[in-house]
């Protein structure tokens, strides 16, 4: 059963999805996993994901687009000339491809309730993220091996493949998160 679960998760990740917020106790239930049907990516979609990972991942973790809603990605992509204080401009064709990818895979939920009308530019500003990380002591995040909440993969060991399960967490110099 565990094998089947892992296979389903792997298939989901290959389809470009994100395996989010799964509490470890839920992971043991087969119905939870078998409900996922992975759609294989077309050649073009794979190329788009690779382009996104190459371009955006050159400077920082390539966040899965599912973490922010459309209006956040639009705001981000429309201000790449001043992207968190740096010039992150792209050539027009790549810019269009990446913006389309982000917007079409964006979160369907607004995710910004309680932000007083602000459009989130950082995933770590969203109420859901704050809630999920509310128990993490600041020193674990600001330490040199992590730097900030922007570096998902510092602690979420499978973040690059879109998996953020609790049992995969290894906080540098502290270990797993119980």
């Amino acid at each position, binding site marked *: 059963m565990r094998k089947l679960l892992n296979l389903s998760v792997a298939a989901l990740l290959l389809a470009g999805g994100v395996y989010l917020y799964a509490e470890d106790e839920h992971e043991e239930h087969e119905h939870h996993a078998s409900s996922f049907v992975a759609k294989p990516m077309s050649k073009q979609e794979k190329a788009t994901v690779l382009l996104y990972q190459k371009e955006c991942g050159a400077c920082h973790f390539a966040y899965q687009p599912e973490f922010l809603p459309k209006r956040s990605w639009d705001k981000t992509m429309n201000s790449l000339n001043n992207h968190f*204080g*740096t010039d992150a*401009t792209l050539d027009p064709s790549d810019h269009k491809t990446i913006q389309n990818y982000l917007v079409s895979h964006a979160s369907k939920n607004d995710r910004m309730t309680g932000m007083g009308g602000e459009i989130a530019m950082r995933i770590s500003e969203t109420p859901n993220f704050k809630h999920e990380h509310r128990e993490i002591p600041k020193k674990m995040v600001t330490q040199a091996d992590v730097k900030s909440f922007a570096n998902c993969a510092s602690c979420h060991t499978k973040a690059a493949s879109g998996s953020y399960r609790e049992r995969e967490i290894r906080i540098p110099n502290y270990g797993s998160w119980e």
Partner: protein
Amino acid sequence: MKYLAIVWMFSMSLMAASPEVVQYMNELSKTAKAENSSFSGFDAARGKEIFTSTHTGKQGKPMACTSCHTTNLSNNGKNSLTGKVIDPLSPRANPQRLTSTKEVNKWLKRNFMDVYAREGSAQEKGDVLTYIMKN
């Protein structure tokens, strides 16, 4: 004839940049000459100065190319904001470097903006590429 071809291929490999990037530098050279009649070719020493000197960057703080790339271009660098590791800039240490005009163009524009808060001139771009090629 065959001998000439071998010599040509050998000299291309010594240039440490792909034919596409060499072509791009030839165009930069023409622009530099048009902008400055006393221009007489790119210079690695000027490029080194551009690369290693500190300026007020886009964020209004002191910044140099070496803030992220370090002073040893054969070593990995580190993005000073995110901490992400940057592959070596030297084409000798990293054969992927200076192989794509699109990449070279993109990073020169971005990084001049980040460090100098303006775009580089054709001469400055050529100088800094010459410096990178020789390191």
